[in-house]
């Protein structure tokens, strides 16, 4: 069994594709730098991540796939963090290169289909983040939002958020993965906190961290949320279907008794 070892980055994966083609040896298993070798494995080939090689593979993909959007399926699958995502992406890229025509549309193929399904799931999660993130204004004028999405989708939401909230400072934080993006009025930058304050673990600001008036606006929004529902048409099942329970703990409008229960 042929094994490739790489550093578990997307560039590393593309470099692995490059070496597979130059060496004409295609791995059966991809493992990370410190992962143990599987049984019956040959001596693994260690991939040194090289941006130039990765770039070249990406360019090749762009030449081969007519509709460029389909390539974002690859990055989306990578951000899904599913355990078998890397081998799936590897197989998919191989099929794209080896098939004489345009293979990316072939939904009859198991790998293409699965990649498209993952792409759809990741896209849905990133639109959930755009829909359901709630900024709270802090005392030093930063709009702060924290949530815990299923997949690592914050990078996918940045183009929309930087366009929409271009004239305010904001911090969007992923509680599950322990990093976030801080927008300083020019561009968003990735930030990590050595010792994250309480609010970055719960997503809730304490009263003294809030800007003046923040509590009032939250209360106004809660009132509006209650008032706009038509009591004669109550449909909690539809509400839950559209507004998944995993986002409830971080929503301003959901009463706090419901927030913790759904964790």
């Amino acid at each position, binding site marked *: 069994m042929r094994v490739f070892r790489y550093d578990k980055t997307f560039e590393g994966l593309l470099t692995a594709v490059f070496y597979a083609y130059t060496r004409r040896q295609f791995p059966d298993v991809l493992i990370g730098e410190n992962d143990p070798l599987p049984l019956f494995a040959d001596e693994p080939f260690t991939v040194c991540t090289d941006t130039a090689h990765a770039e070249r593979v990406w360019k090749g993909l762009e030449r081969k796939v007519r509709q460029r959007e389909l390539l974002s399926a690859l990055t989306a699958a990578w951000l899904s963090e599913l355990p078998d995502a890397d081998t799936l992406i590897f197989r998919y890229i191989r099929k794209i290169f080896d098939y004489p025509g345009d293979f990316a549309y072939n939904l*009859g193929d198991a790998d293409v289909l699965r990649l498209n399904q993952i792409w759809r799931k990741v896209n849905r999660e990133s639109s959930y983040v755009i829909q359901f993130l709630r900024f709270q204004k802090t*005392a030093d004028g930063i709009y702060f939002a924290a949530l815990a999405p299923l997949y690592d989708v914050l990078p996918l939401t940045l183009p929309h958020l930087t366009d929409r909230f271009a*004239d305010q400072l904001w911090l969007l934080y992923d509680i599950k993965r322990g990093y976030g993006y801080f927008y300083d009025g020019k561009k968003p930058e990735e930030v990590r906190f050595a010792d994250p304050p309480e609010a970055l673990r719960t997503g809730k600001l304490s009263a003294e961290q809030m800007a003046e008036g923040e509590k009032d606006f939250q209360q106004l929004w809660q009132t509006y*949320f209650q008032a706009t529902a038509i009591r004669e048409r109550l449909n909690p099942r539809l509400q839950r279907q*559209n507004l998944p329970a995993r986002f409830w703990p971080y929503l301003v409008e959901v009463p706090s008794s419901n927030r913790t229960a759904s964790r």
Partner: protein
Amino acid sequence: MGKYTGFRPIGVSFGRKAVFLPEIYAMNANVLEKLKILAESAKFDVSCASSGTSRGHQKGAIGSAAGWGICHSFAADGRCIALLKIMLTNSCMYDCAYCINRRSNDIPRATFAVSELVELTIEFYRRNYIEGLFLSSGVVRNPDYTMERMVRVVKDLRTLHRFNGYIHMKSIPGASEALVHEAGLYADRLSVNIEIPNEASLQALAPEKNFQSVFTPMRYIQQGVVQSAEERRHFRSAPRFAPAGQSTQMIIGATPDNDQSILRLSSALYRRQSMKRVYYSGYIHINTYDTRLPALKQAPLVRENRLYQADWLLRFYQFRVEEIVDDSHPNLELDIDPKLSWALRHPENFPVDVNRADYEQLLRVPGIGVKSAKAILLARRYGRLGTYQLKRIGVVLKKAQYFITTCELPTPTIQEITPEGVRRLLVKPNPRAADERQLSLFFDEP
């Protein structure tokens, strides 16, 4: 900038200082109460779409408009909350029987000051609660007076505060052309509600309104859209007029009008290029004392759903209204969807071969929608399709199986089973309809 709360990552410099609006913390109990009253009054309007306009960020302005709609929350009734749906005032001089804000109702009345509403919109928007504002109003003094005050809100938002998000504004029936035109320069979408699809019924329920007062502002909007499109063809900088077009709403079940008259009206409205959506609102019996209205226990939710399905057939499936409802079938069937109903009436068009049929034919198959039809077109370039492949690409075969042939051995279709047979297979008898405790004697009901 106040005290340090630990949220600004150390070492990140600010560069250009962000410009903030002068903030007024006038939000008090008074505003809270007004918000509650005016949201309750506005909630029966169905429209909440924030789609149709794509506008990137502009320097010095607040926000953007996404071309697709974004729902920011879902209320307990399962409906999307995309816009701050609110009335400027719920005092109204009209007495429309179906409306919660009619002047003979004894409900709390309130009026927003322009500055309060503007601040509320912007602060909600900055916190990602909403996509923008949906402004409606009761009629005070006269249509023009009311419309003028509404225009002032949207004008303030757009020009004074450079609000770049989405604005949907109701046009008051009977408002003058100049005001509708001014509103169209600031709002993304304008709407006038027809409410009742038949003029005689409308006059009976809303004595102050008639079709003319509804269709005149609609025509103004249409003219504005066409004129602006023409001007923009010559000068790219010409102002846009209601770039997301107009919409309207009809109440379902308040009058004895059948689905044929409703859908005919919708289809006629969709023929105008500016009409983007017709909404259907199942009547809720709120003004229980009014004997002109039917005493419905529950809003006609199934009928509303079937009308939306028929509406989709008109807009995305290339159906004509005569195919969905005709004189022999003036109402939509409640237990099956309109497309299946059409297919059962027209078995001669089936079965359809999924490996050969063109897009239009595939769209007519019950159970195959726009997504499935497109997926089939793509997948069959690479090989012939059988039921296994169809399931794999996400086509649901529950209904479609009786209307298609695949590359596999033929299965019984509508031709073999007959339309009645297919109907029996697809419609499950309602278990609650038959009361098993009651012995039935075989007498025909008169």
